[in-house]
């Protein structure tokens, strides 16, 4: 009987599937999944080998000769490599530092340490428009502007330690303080004063004068900021950020985040870094986003230009009275003021109601356009691999050239459009003196249709629309 293991072919299939998934859904956060779940591969591998050994034993085909382990040396080397890659990805993706600060705990007793809680409070007078700086810390902060001239902090500190005395000492060594005065206040948790085994988190409710400017630094934990008329700047290794009703400029720079949500910002919004979901609504300033966001990205009601510069997708919109939603392999937008420029690797694109000019370039994916309003916008669409469908209102004026290099053409619009087929591809052409419309696909079906009354604008399905009031929820504890 051939004793070749089935693990190697399965491994090949697995790698193939992963790359295929990456090609089909380039925005899928495969690296994140790998960083989190890679040890499961080890378990699967072990289970498979164990099953094989048991199978050999059960079928009486004989066991491998005594002294030879169930796994070959080559396999162990592969496993070692897998561990190295897994651990480094896990560390790089910023889930946590893999090696603990305290070093290896030989006794293994430390895991029985408990969490001790200490109250946290401070108050300091400030001017009407102070700059409030929060120094880097672990934990959550909720910052609220109100009609006061003091900065007031309440909350609690959790210290994980083996015994009460150690926690007490750590508590004394990391005094909470508010320093500075008048125009510039610094909130300091002094967590870095503690070295060794205790882990500290501070959860703070901070009330600041309405006119305050916030500059917050965090290592792990969420920031909720609301009702502040100054600028807000947040820099963190790992945070969820929720902003509401901000009068100034917003800058958010995160290494990792599950959500960034901003509702009601008067100034410009600037996002950078890595994250998952992004939700922006009612923004009066210019929006600039440069980073990698793997989740659902939604924009609504943005009155200045929007510049989105992602890993796979670039998007420029002059003004967005409507909404845009980007999710896995999909781009849906409605009611845009152009010029609009979209450049994406692999998404199905649906756009309705746009003005001025539209420029779309898609590597792989279908494009569906429904300009609802007249006069039409200039359109320039290029698709490498995918179908293009344009639905025009019957009264539209245009100068249209639609071609496919390989695929069928279809039109039911009637005059002035004529379709001609040449070899494998074909074209639809016609003009009655309107704006220039150029549609092109290298490979795919090209259709130009007459819009019917059934064709509604695309309305992106909205997930949990941000409500006007901040949901009052208790600050969640940061996991130890």
């Amino acid at each position: 009987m051939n004793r070749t293991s089935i693990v190697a072919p399965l491994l090949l299939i697995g790698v193939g599937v992963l790359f295929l998934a990456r090609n089909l859904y380039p925005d899928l956060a495969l690296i994140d999944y790998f960083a989190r779940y890679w040890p499961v591969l080890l378990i699967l591998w072990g289970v498979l080998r164990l099953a094989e050994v048991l199978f050999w034993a059960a079928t009486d085909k004989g066991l491998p000769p005594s002294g030879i382990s169930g796994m070959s040396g080559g396999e162990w080397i592969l496993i070692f490599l897998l561990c190295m890659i897994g651990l480094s990805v896990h560390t790089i993706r910023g889930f946590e530092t893999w090696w603990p600060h305290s070093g290896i705990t030989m006794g293994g007793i430390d895991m029985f340490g408990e969490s001790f809680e200490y109250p946290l409070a401070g108050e300091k007078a400030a001017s009407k428009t102070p700059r409030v700086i929060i120094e880097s810390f672990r934990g959550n902060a909720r910052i609220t502007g109100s009609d006061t001239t003091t900065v007031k902090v309440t909350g609690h500190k959790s210290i994980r330690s083996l015994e009460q005395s150690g926690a007490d000492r750590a508590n004394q060594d990391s005094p909470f303080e508010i320093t500075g005065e008048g125009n510039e206040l610094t909130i300091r948790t002094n967590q870095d004063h503690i070295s060794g085994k205790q882990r500290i988190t501070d959860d703070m409710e901070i009330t600041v004068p309405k006119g305050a400017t916030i500059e917050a630094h965090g290592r792990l934990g969420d920031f909720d900021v609301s009702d502040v008329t100054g600028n807000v700047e947040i820099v963190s290794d790992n945070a969820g950020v929720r902003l509401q009703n901000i009068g100034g400029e917003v800058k958010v720079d995160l290494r990792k985040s599950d959500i960034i949500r901003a509702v009601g910002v008067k100034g410009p919004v600037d996002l950078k870094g890595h994250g998952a979901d992004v939700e922006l609504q009612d923004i009066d300033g210019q929006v600039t986003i440069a980073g990698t966001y793997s989740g659902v990205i939604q924009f609504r009601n943005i009155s200045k230009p929007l510049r989105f510069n992602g890993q796979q997708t670039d998007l420029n919109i002059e003004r967005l009275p409507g909404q845009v939603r980007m999710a896995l392999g999909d781009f849906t937008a409605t009611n845009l003021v152009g010029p609009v420029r979209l450049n994406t690797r692999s998404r199905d694109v649906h756009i309705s109601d746009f003005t001025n000019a539209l420029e779309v370039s898609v590597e792989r994916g279908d494009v569906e356009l429904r300009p609802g309003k007249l006069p039409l916008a200039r359109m320039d669409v290029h698709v490498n691999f995918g179908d293009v469908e344009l639905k025009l209102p019957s009264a539209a004026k245009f100068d249209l050239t639609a071609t496919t290099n390989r695929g069928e053409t279809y039109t039911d619009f009637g005059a002035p459009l004529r379709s001609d087929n040449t070899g494998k591809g074909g074209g639809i052409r016609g003009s009655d003196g309107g704006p220039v419309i150029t549609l092109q696909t290298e490979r795919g079906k090209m259709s130009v249709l007459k819009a019917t009354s059934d064709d509604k604008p695309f309305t992106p399905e909205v997930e949990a629309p941000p409500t006007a009031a901040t949901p009052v929820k208790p600050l969640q504890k940061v996991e130890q």
Partner: protein
Amino acid sequence: MTPGFLCAIRGPVMLITLGVLLSIHNFGTVSFARTWPVLLIVFGIFKLMERSGTRMPQ
């Protein structure tokens, strides 16, 4: 429970143990830095079982 059988399943079982410990680490419950001695224990148990196996004449 021949020594050959024990030897054969030692590798896979060690691998599964390693995978479980690292999973637990990744999900943030207990750090691998604290649980790694489990690997030594599992390995030791196998060695013990092999010894008691070889005492019997093959």
